[in-house]
């Protein structure tokens, strides 16, 4: 274990652009590396991605390991795993972070198996125990009512996938210097057992959700589909996007794409209405970074009030119609818009 050095971040690239979560992880990784007094490295794989290496440094890395190979043009487990394993075996790291995206999770699971090491999924908090040089990777557990800190005591690297939008990226420092190390692997296309035939971009409701400025989300407290209709009514009144909790999705009131939380989407709108939502951690991790949170719940002790900027204690079925009416009245005063910014 003595030779294990450095904090690594897998840099996910799609459409020649670094994913936001990778930049966030460089920010989080920088803090861990500083505490441990070790270098921070980015692992950059792809075809024609070399030019992105300087960005990885600007966002906090000291070293960038680059494998540029036509076989790595599009993500495939087998090709990416081979590249990561060969780097991990040659250079060693003590902590290795991946974004909890479909590709990041897929890759990390495969790499952890081959390296016989521990992997914590969907982490939302990261820290280190300096004495033991242990990564403390915390995540919501058991459907999301408590947090569990997962440790990997004896195996290296300690690996974790981290939820997008919970860590903070640094502002890029364009004067920052670092080392770029290129490796050649000579991967062969004929060794690959999968082919990506086509990539289809869907401007789904999910995409709209992550861009939305205002989201109205409903939970179990809405009671039934008729009750949940009030969520749609309020959203329509103020031009917001509709979302909901796992319970609302499981009850069939809402498609899965519109679920906010640990097993759904993470959103950071400017305004988030949490209505009839108790505030289980499972849900809260997906919305707590919203700028302004309004909670409406009839239980004054509901944990959602701990994350809310403003809370109304009351029955959503009574509050929402009044809220809609009030918005409409205000908008009349201002000629159709509540805000005249």
């Amino acid at each position: 274990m003595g030779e294990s050095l450095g904090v690594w971040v897998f840099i996910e690239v799609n459409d020649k652009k670094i994913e936001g979560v990778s930049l966030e992880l460089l920010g989080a990784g920088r803090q861990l590396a500083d505490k441990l007094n070790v270098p921070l490295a980015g692992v950059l794989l792809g075809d024609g991605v070399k030019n992105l290496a300087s960005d990885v440094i600007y966002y906090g890395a000291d070293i960038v390991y680059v494998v540029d190979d036509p076989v790595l043009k599009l993500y495939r487990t087998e090709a990416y795993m081979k590249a990561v394993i060969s780097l991990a075996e040659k250079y060693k790291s003590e902590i290795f972070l991946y974004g909890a995206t479909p590709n990041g999770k897929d890759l990390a699971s495969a790499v952890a198996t081959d390296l016989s090491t521990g992997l914590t999924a969907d982490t939302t908090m990261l820290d280190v125990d300096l004495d033991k040089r242990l990564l403390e990777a915390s995540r919501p557990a058991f459907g999301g009512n408590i947090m569990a800190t997962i440790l990997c005591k004896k195996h290296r690297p300690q690996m974790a996938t981290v939820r997008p939008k919970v860590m903070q990226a640094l502002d890029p420092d364009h004067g920052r210097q670092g080392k770029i190390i290129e490796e050649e692997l000579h991967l062969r296309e004929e060794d690959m057992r999968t082919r990506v035939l086509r990539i289809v971009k869907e401007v789904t409701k999910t995409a709209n959700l992550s861009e939305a400025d205002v989201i109205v989300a409903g939970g179990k407290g809405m009671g039934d589909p008729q009750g949940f209709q009030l969520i749609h009514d309020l959203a329509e009144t103020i031009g917001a996007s509709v979302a909901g909790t796992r319970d609302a999705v499981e009850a069939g009131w809402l498609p899965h794409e519109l679920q906010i939380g640990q097993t759904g989407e993470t959103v950071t709108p400017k305004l988030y209405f949490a209505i009839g939502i108790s505030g289980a951690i499972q849900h809260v991790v997906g919305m707590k970074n919203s700028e302004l949170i309004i909670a409406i719940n009839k239980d004054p002790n509901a944990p959602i009030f701990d994350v809310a900027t403003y809370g109304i204690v009351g029955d959503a079925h009574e509050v929402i119609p009044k809220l809609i009416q009030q918005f409409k009245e205000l908008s009349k005063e201002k000629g159709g818009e509540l805000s005249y910014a």
Partner: protein
Amino acid sequence: MHIIVCVKQVPDTKIIKINPKTNTLDRRSAPAILNPYDAHAVQEAVKIKQLTGGTVSVLSMGPPQAVSIIKKSIEIGADKGYLISDRAFAGADTLATSYALSKALERISEEQKIDMVICGKHAIDGDTGQVGPGIARRLDMPPVTNVIEVTEVKTEERKINLKRKQLGGYEEIEAQLPCLLTVEKEVNEIEYAPMPNMIKAARYEPVVWTVDDLGEVDRSQLGLKGSPTVVGKMFTPPRRAGGKKLEGTIDEQVKELTGLLREKQDLFRFNVNS
């Protein structure tokens, strides 16, 4: 075509309660169910079998009570069920779980070669999604995770076409058989179980194996011993500097709220539709 589905018995997390004093899970409070994603995995295997012919087997690791989810899988249409159950498996994290399951899969493949393994995207009690890809590595099969559609199974060519969920859309993938898939719920709708399946399930007794039945196994890679990760501590998350609960009647609160929102007019812009 021999398709094996890995299934897990999980507490229904929708219903489960946490003991507020000890912060631990009150497992008795929740009924044990077939992991919902795994139900879709079984359904997909049955759908593929209807096209290609062959056998659908299910495999689970768990306590003896996990027989109930194998029966559930038989109801959906699986032909055969295997349960590996042994104290030696207890306390396994994802790495040790994928090891134990892959050993059982190797044993099953000695009886009948495996063409495809299907797993649910993740189990709702752990939410990790790491076991499926782990099994794929151990059996040296190409994994395709987050599958939302099985488009075509080309038995002659030994290939399968799939749609895989991706950031901002999906990708179409062609994979060689044998391969391992993990499926999202969108992949299919669970169909009502036909009566003959129900009758078969009620009487069905799966093959139950202990560690000793699995052939050559490195016991140090099983259960708690074989698990590199441990739970350090459990805690309720740090509370955010609490918000402001508004006061007064509902009408007063609603008025105050809209007033407060107007003050934040630099933040966002409503277009109120009347």
